[in-house]
């Protein structure tokens, strides 16, 4: 895929809605298309966060192993992002992410994006704003889950 066609793919994803074309192109320069088979891990807890993924199709499950039981924390569907730990030191994954279905995605090189952020603050702020949204949303969802509202 060319930078142009990746840019176009990104523009169609909900997460990148409102991001200027110019920034999408910069991101596309750090990105490549990727596919995961059902059951394949996208990220593993404790590993270095070298990349992140935007889902085009399929579903990814964030999982945590506790007390010998694997719990699904949340599933993430098309148009969303898997992974934000690449943005915050020490750049290691907090959970496992497993393809719950076959997944077609775009994978980003984390170092490449971080370098662009450092050198171009306007781009960096835009990326940060978009990822803050993901972080806040995950936090909110966790809090609502904690409320155990159907009980």
């Amino acid at each position, binding site marked *: 895929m060319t930078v142009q066609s990746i840019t176009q793919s990104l523009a169609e994803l909900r997460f990148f809605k409102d991001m200027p074309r110019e920034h999408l192109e910069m991101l596309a320069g750090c990105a490549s298309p990727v596919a995961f088979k059902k059951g394949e891990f996208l990220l593993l807890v404790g590993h270095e966060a070298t990349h992140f993924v935007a889902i085009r199709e399929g579903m990814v499950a964030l999982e945590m192993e506790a007390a010998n039981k694997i*719990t*699904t924390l949340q*599933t993430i569907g*098309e*148009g969303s992002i898997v992974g934000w730990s690449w943005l915050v030191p020490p750049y290691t994954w907090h959970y496992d992410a497993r393809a719950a279905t076959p997944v077609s995605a775009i994978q980003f090189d984390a170092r490449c994006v971080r370098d662009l952020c450092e050198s171009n603050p306007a781009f960096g702020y835009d990326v940060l704003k978009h990822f803050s949204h993901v972080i806040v949303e995950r936090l909110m*969802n966790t809090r609502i*889950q904690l409320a155990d*509202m159907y009980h």
Partner: protein
Amino acid sequence: MFMTNGQVAARPMTPVVGRIRRRRRETQDTFTLEIELEKKRRFSFAPGQFNMLYVFGVGEVPISISGDPAESDVVRHTTREVGVVTGAMRGLKEGDYLGIRGPFGSAWPVEEAEGRDVVVIAGGIGLAPLRPVLYHLMDHRERYNRVTILYGARTPEDILYKQELGRWSARLDVEVFATVDRATRTWHGNVGVITTLIPRAPFDPKNALAMVCGPEIMMHFCVRELHRRGVTSDRIFVSMERNMQCAIGLCGHCQYGPHFVCKDGPVFRFDQIEEFFSVREF
């Protein structure tokens, strides 16, 4: 308008008697009763309305009607065991009797929704008061634009009406998205709170009408997501719960600001109650 049961008007505080024809376990803590009224009395209601059910010598509780509004020979209630009366109700067997008063309260806006994208959002047992709406939508599918059902439950085991949800999701003209708050790998569906379904649900916010039912906190977060997508408060309907005893607006318990939930609700257009919705202990 829906008081085919003449008893309600004349003696609004006195129940009639009905016999449990069938009793069905739905989930670990929920069950459905099918009740026939004495003397083959017909019963009709509007989706969203509720009855007061009385267990002999124990007490009375408001329970939403969860049957098909097109059938009038049986009254269906799905309820969850949460207290003394529902606990006793759970112990009733087929052939046992209970007291019924109703139907009471306001209805979901199934007519106002015609021609629109309809988004039905239910959390937990909140699917029960919305099931009559779903029956109605399926029966009159041509009157509506896109129909989307978003359903959130605690765990996969807590999902109500699994067969019906499966049947509806198999239809090409209905989209069903279910999610659970927690699950293990054996569950292959969505995991996450119900609000996560709203941003990606297929409806046009400008034309959509949403009906939301579940715990107040769940409705609070869902309304927030609907607002974010651009659905305005006058196109969002919620079903409120307060202590209801008389069901006819006389005993005072269900007051919610200017409203009596039993008679002005339980279904409210959100802008009618918006100013009080976030006030604590109101």
